[in-house]
């Protein structure tokens, strides 16, 4: 047993637990925006940790894995931002517990003018 494979597999386990909790958040949260919060944050860190752990296990793959990590860290927030913008444009409401919605106020002001 080599130490780098043990360390890598433990990091991978941590990342997979974050991925599982993110998916649980996507399943349990009450509305689209909260779901997206859970989904984006947990999948970004979870994928980064999982891939990094595998890169430590097989250190000859580290370069490829780092390129994948950079790609995911750059594109994941952008795709979630595009989805959130589209959903708000379409008029999908926030959950009933919400306290404020400044963007909607702004849009209705623009309609009146």
């Amino acid at each position, binding site marked *: 047993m080599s130490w780098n494979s043990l360390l890598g597999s433990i990091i991978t386990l941590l990342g997979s637990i974050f991925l599982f909790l993110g998916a649980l958040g996507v399943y*349990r949260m009450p509305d689209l925006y*909260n779901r997206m*919060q*859970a989904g984006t944050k947990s999948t970004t860190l979870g994928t980064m940790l999982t891939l990094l752990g595998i890169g430590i296990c097989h250190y000859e793959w580290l370069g490829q894995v780092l390129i994948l990590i950079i790609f995911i860290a750059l594109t994941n*927030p952008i795709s979630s931002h595009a989805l*959130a913008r589209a959903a*708000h444009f379409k008029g999908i409401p926030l959950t009933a517990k919400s306290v404020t919605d400044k963007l909607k106020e702004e849009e209705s002001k623009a309609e009146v003018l």
Partner: protein
Amino acid sequence: MNKIVKIVFSTIVLTLFYFIWTRTTSVNNILVIAGLGLFVSIIYRNYLRSPILSPKKIAYAIFYVFYLFIEIIKANIDVALRVIKPVIPINPGIVKVKTKLKSPMGRLLLTSSITLTPGTLTVDIDGDTLYIHWIDVKDKEESGATEKIVSNFEKYLEVIFG
């Protein structure tokens, strides 16, 4: 002249990425990829941007990456603690904040960082106004929300992107 330096630099970066991905040692292979990289760089010659580098900016960029990583870990622990409770404790809403950054790249990094940090998600951007979905609204007013969400990142990004 400036444009040629940018094209050559972009070609080298693309070839380097291919080399890291495949770890090939054949010279012919790398020459073909360098030609393709040159072709792609010439197509995108008007979109290549290079920031003016200085040691202070590089130091701030490295520190920013570490700061962002710590914030991402905090965000994940926050999400995990919310998700496993029987009744999810949320107090959500969309708030409006203002940013002082001017460059498009700085704004892109700011919105991505906001999305990855605890409890906030960028919904829309309109000029210098950002609309942010906040899972636990502490301050409905613009100035208070700006101070709580944006100002921590702006300190670094203002130096890096000027």
